[in-house]
């Protein structure tokens, strides 16, 4: 087509100062060659990044929480029944069920604080992958805008207001797997109605099937653009399951227990989540505002038995940790784009107000029947966070992000024991500073400093008597500070290769550790971590991309204790190598190798877990523009590795004494899932 041309060059020249507009820091460049969006000039650290919808779709995920593994260095695992919150590992942490990893879905916090089973409980089973438009991740406590639990990192999932294509999907798989989902976004009035419904069943490879069944739905009405409009969303999720908790290695070695057997087949749970939320945003040339409000009702019934017959040789050690809560909150921020002395400057101020009204407890049970109440609590936890963050571009090759955050927490606990009831509060100020140099030769350099924190369980801040033993215990502080620093580089100097390298140090005043016998997390010793992360994304061809990520961390307790300074469960080495083929005619596919390195299981490092290696893959074939079939394969090499290992004492029925032993949850055996995807 020959014709008069416009002025592309003139327009192009206009863009020579095109910086990331601070009114929309999350928006990335269009992918000119189909590559992952460049973070040069955009990200404030070498470790931050964004994963787009296409890349999320190309991943093989056994469970929805694994979508977060798109974050380099993050491992998502499971030690129990499928409906339970996942186990997370990142930056030298065993994050248990989500401590120190702040997760949000559409700005709603997912971490549940002062949770019956584990601080920061992050149950992502309500996530519907078809709606996930993007995942933004950051690591380290370098942003004033992130609050509680964000010291190791934060992951923000954004649901789309409208879908580029409606989707209906049906999957069947081995081990009782079946899933169907529908998601569509028709126009309604002046806006768009997004709806999605998901039904899932999964047994897993276990002798006593998980019989995990879930119903999950989303309804959203939105008007306008995301940055100039509003949305109102309702979400509902419910699930029930049986759990095969971790089992003792000695029984498997002796042949008395099969690899996929359960010790207590009555373990399991049920979960419900309902939420109503709204987002309003207004973006003008010189300012931007955002307000989001939410109210979330979470209910969990959870029956676990990790020590079998250690405490109660007659009834067994099963315990229940029910948790019912209503979480409500408001997040609001305002950004001014200022131009003092010709500089580009964005000033962001914001507030995060959150209230949790919680009823939870710890009960001794047998076959899910309550035998006694160890403790039952009514917790009201209220927090207010205020932050200010200033982004300044001092020159074409130097910019800074400086922030200050203040948090105030109030805890009000009414427990079955008056000695464990009371009120407490805690305050903390968290400064942060990021220096970004570059780009020179498509290379940015970063220096990041920041303080972060996590909150402790409200019950721990007022508990003076162990409700089980009756022994006096000390209270723990409400908030625990972390200090991080990081040196990073990100480069695209090699064509088609995006590389980043981070060296970091992260100190915690007190580590949250998992207490296997109580089934809870406890405030523990001070710690220090050093780590290095090396991430690569190479897209040599339009249809081929390669991800290669390596992370190594050294984690130690900082105090002197003769038991040793290793941190049980702290992950050391993590790696992934993924090949993704897309748009190769009608074919697409992916192959992903995940290495989850050995961990110390005890403070003196005398017992260590083995590494686990997972190879997952998928092949897709597109019959037409709107119809595709996919075959997914999990644990392709059928390795008999552990998904997780613990080391503690347990006693099986018939054993005369407790045994210190490794307890493991097996990686699921090789399984296949076939999916038909219809778009319209």
């Amino acid at each position, binding site marked *: 087509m*020959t014709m008069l041309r*416009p002025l592309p060059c003139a327009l*192009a*020249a206009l863009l020579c100062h095109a910086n990331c507009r601070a009114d929309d820091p999350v928006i990335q460049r269009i992918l000119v060659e189909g590559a992952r969006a460049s973070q040069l000039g955009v990200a404030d650290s070498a470790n931050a990044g964004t994963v*787009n919808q296409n890349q999320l779709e190309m991943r093989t995920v056994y469970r929805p929480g694994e979508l977060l593994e798109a974050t380099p260095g993050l491992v998502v695992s499971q030690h129990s029944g499928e409906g339970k919150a996942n186990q997370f590992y990142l930056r030298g942490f065993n994050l248990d069920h989500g401590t120190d990893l702040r997760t949000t879905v559409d700005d709603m916090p997912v971490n549940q604080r002062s949770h019956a089973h584990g601080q920061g409980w992050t149950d992502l089973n309500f996530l519907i992958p078809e709606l996930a438009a993007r995942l933004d991740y950051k690591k380290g406590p370098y942003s004033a805008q992130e609050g509680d639990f964000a010291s190791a990192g934060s992951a923000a999932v954004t*649901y*789309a207001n409208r879908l580029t294509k409606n989707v209906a999907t049906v999957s069947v798989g081995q081990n009782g797997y079946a899933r169907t989902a529908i998601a569509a976004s028709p126009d309604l009035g002046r806006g768009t109605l997004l709806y999605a419904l998901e039904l899932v069943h999964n047994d897993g490879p276990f002798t006593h099937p998980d019989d995990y069944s879930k119903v999950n739905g989303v309804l959203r009405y939105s008007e306008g653009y995301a940055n100039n409009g509003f949305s109102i969303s309702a979400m509902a999720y419910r699930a029930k399951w049986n759990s095969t908790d971790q089992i003792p290695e000695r029984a498997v070695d002796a042949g008395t227990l099969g690899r996929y057997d359960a010790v207590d087949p009555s373990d399991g749970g049920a979960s419900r989540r309902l939420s109503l939320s709204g987002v309003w945003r207004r973006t003008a*040339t010189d300012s931007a505002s955002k307000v989001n409000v939410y109210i979330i009702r979470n209910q969990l019934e959870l029956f676990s038995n990790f020590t079998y017959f250690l405490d109660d040789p007659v009834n067994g050690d099963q315990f229940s940790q029910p948790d019912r809560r209503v979480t409500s909150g408001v997040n609001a921020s305002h950004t001014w784009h200022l131009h003092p002395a010709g500089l*580009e400057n964005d000033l962001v101020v914001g507030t995060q107000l959150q209230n949790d009204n919680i009823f939870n407890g710890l009960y001794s049970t047998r076959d899910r029947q309550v035998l006694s109440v160890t403790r039952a609590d009514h917790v009201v936890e209220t927090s207010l966070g205020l932050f200010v963050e200033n982004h300044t571009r001092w020159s074409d090759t130097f910019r800074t992000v400086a922030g200050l955050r203040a948090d105030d927490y109030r805890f009000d606990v009414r427990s079955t024991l008056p000695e464990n009831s009371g009120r407490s509060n805690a305050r903390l100020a968290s400064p942060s500073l990021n220096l970004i140099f570059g780009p020179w030769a498509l290379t940015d350099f970063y220096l990041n400093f920041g303080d972060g924190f996590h909150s402790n369980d409200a019950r721990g801040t007022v508990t003076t008597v162990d409700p089980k033993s009756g022994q006096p215990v000390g209270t723990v502080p409400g908030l625990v500070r972390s200090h991080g620093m990081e040196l990073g580089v990100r480069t695209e100097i090699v064509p088609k290769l995006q590389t980043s390298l981070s060296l970091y140090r992260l100190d915690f005043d007190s580590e949250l550790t998992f207490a296997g016998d109580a089934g809870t997390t406890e405030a523990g010793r001070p710690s220090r971590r050093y780590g290095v992360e090396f991430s690569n994304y190479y897209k040599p061809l339009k249809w081929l991309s390669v991800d290669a990520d390596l992370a190594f961390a050294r984690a130690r307790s900082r105090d002197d204790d003769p038991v040793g300074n290793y941190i049980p469960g702290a992950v050391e080495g993590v790696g992934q190598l993924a090949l993704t083929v897309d748009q190769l005619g009608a074919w697409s596919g992916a192959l992903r190798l995940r290495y989850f390195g050995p961990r110390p299981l005890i403070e003196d490092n005398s017992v260590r877990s083995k590494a686990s290696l997972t190879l997952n893959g998928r092949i897709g074939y597109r019959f037409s523009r709107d119809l595709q079939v996919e075959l997914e394969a999990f644990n392709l090499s059928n390795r008999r590795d552990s998904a997780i290992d613990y080391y503690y004492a347990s006693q099986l029925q018939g054993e005369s004494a407790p045994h210190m032993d490794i307890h493991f949850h097996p990686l699921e055996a090789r399984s296949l899932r076939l999916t038909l995807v219809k778009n319209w």
Partner: protein
Amino acid sequence: MARTRFTIALAAALVFSSTAPQAHQFHAGITDIGFNQKTGSTEIVHTYMTHDVEALLGELYQRQFDLSRPEDEAILRKYVEKQFFILGPDQRRLPIHWVGLEVNVDSVTIYQEIEDTPLSQAARIHQDVLSDFIADQANTINIKQGGAIRTLSFDHKSADQNLR
């Protein structure tokens, strides 16, 4: 002549904007419309800033776009066809055919044509591409008719203009 003047003005603007740190980013789009005598069709070429298009699509769908993918191009096409159209004398939309697009780091160029239709059939233009999204988006349409070039300016408040 008008086009030459416009070019000079634009060049002056860009020199200014690229030597001084901008107070505001400049948001502009240019559409050239002309009749191709060889094919007998009216041809339309839009040029927008990539940054603006990426922000637009990102804020519509909350995700990144890869316009080399046909399905992502279709999304932009749907938007452009809703925001840009030409009415004939009977106030009906002329059938504008999507030819394709080119993307580079700085600009997105979109090609459309109205097959077997002379420009004289166009009575009214609706141009609200990006101006519904960016308050200060300025869209310029250059209409080449005979030897002359006529320039029209559009923004969100004046998204409809008569050609006659």
